């Protein structure tokens, strides 16, 4: 697939920020879930 490297770089940058945010909030929610499970047991 022809895709200019500079376009690919900015696409990667944008998606990295967004998926980085997704990973961060997912990790934090998982920690909350774990804390609650530990607290309940």
């Amino acid at each position, binding site marked *: 697939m022809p895709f200019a490297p500079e*376009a690919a*770089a*900015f696409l990667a*940058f944008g*998606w990295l*920020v967004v998926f980085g*945010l997704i990973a*961060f909030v997912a990790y*934090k929610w998982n920690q*909350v879930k774990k804390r609650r499970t530990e607290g309940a047991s």
Partner: protein
Amino acid sequence: MSAPAREHWATKIGLILAMAGNAIGLGNFIRFPAKAAAYGGGAYLIPYFIALFLLGIPIMFVEWVLGRYGGAHGHGHLAPMLYIASKRRLSPKTAAWFAIIGGAVAFVTGVMITGYYTNIIGWMAFYACSSIGGAFAGLKTADDAIGYLVSFLTNPAYNFPAWLISLFIIAFIVSRGVRRGIEIAAKIMMPILFLEGIILVILSLTLGAPVKPEWTSIKGFEWLWTPKLAKLGDPSAFIEGAGQIFFTLSIGIAGIIPNYASYLRREDDIPLSALTTTTLNEFAEVVMGASIAIPLAYAFGGPELMAKVEAGMSGFILSVSALPPLFGKLGGIGAVAGFLWFSLLWFAGVTSAIALVNVITAIFEEDFNIKRSIGAWIAFAIVFLTGVFVNIEGAMKTEQLTDYLDLADFYAGSLLLLVVALIEVIAVLWLWGVDESYEEIHRGAFITIPKWYWKLIAGIIAPIYLLIMLIWFVVTGSPSAAARPENIFGWIAVAMLIIMFILGIVINKAALYRRYGKEITGGA
């Protein structure tokens, strides 16, 4: 005085979906890609993300904490929230007027935006039905598609019911309440929206070249992301990036985020929930929004059309001029894709408009003891009044069909949002106080916001950024055609803005004095 009992969100997921629905609107899918194309392609992400972290996220936190704090005191709209936050450092009378004016500006943005925004939602409903009904098959060129739009806008037999039915659905959902109406609607509509978006992204990136062999949709995707770094030398790229963050996160709009946050319990988390809704919005915008309209439009019109987008063609015009003929050309799949695209825009608009109607309803329900089931229809009547001129203008003219809408959008939908956000930041960070608001936002918090971020970014950088935007907007925007009334519909929009501001003052003053009259007049 004890706060009256209020509804709360039934579930965390319901809250997050409703908040995300509030934020995710038409702007994610049609405004963002057009702005990115016009202001640097992939390079546009630099000013855009700077604004997200310096302006969007901090103001999001400000609105959430103001809302939850207001809700704990029985308030669902901005004026009393601003009052209780600012009276800590202002005299009750000064705080009251600060709050009344802030509330009135928010009221103007709410009723005026809802008026024209629900019209656009109605247009999307009509287009979704048109696509599935095969109407796009007869559209061969962009001119055909524009002709189709004009014939629709100038025919009240089509555009009036499309608007009224959408507005009716929105008011009906609001009238059912937070749990039984808004939350259920969000739980149904948001998954549909994301599913439609993902299907459209896949279709868009695998479409190939239905019009000319060299105009592949993937080439359009590449075109959008190719950085034009020279554009970053223009300060307007930074203003536009910040403006997009405002529109996309719905910050400063009528106090709709504080309103939804007011249904939180006092010990409910704010920082992680607010960040999660922001993240969902960014996914809908940067990943989905950038992957649909531009690649599809490129497949239809190639580089020539993209040159027009780069020169400033609006995302809305692009969506209604390039996409319908493309969908028409694709036959049955195109009819379904067109339905998915315009119904996605309808869902995105409706979930935002529900929040707009709800904040107007909250004023009547909470401060004038009017039942929600009636308050929602009073809000419907006010929105009818501010929105019907969009219809009347279309029915009475043959060209320049959106003067009322453009002027209302310029003032209520662009300029006044900044004023509302600035007032909120001043109320929370400066008048309530950095330490007090920081402590409040961390009640029940799942994550900790760094103190420096709250103090420096939310307290200093964000208001300076807002002030620069306001000055820039007034200086560069005032000469534009949208800012000046040039005919009767422009003047009607000016009159409605003034009338709604006065109505906002009267309603907010009455609401505030009903609850805090003795305190404000010194009789407590």
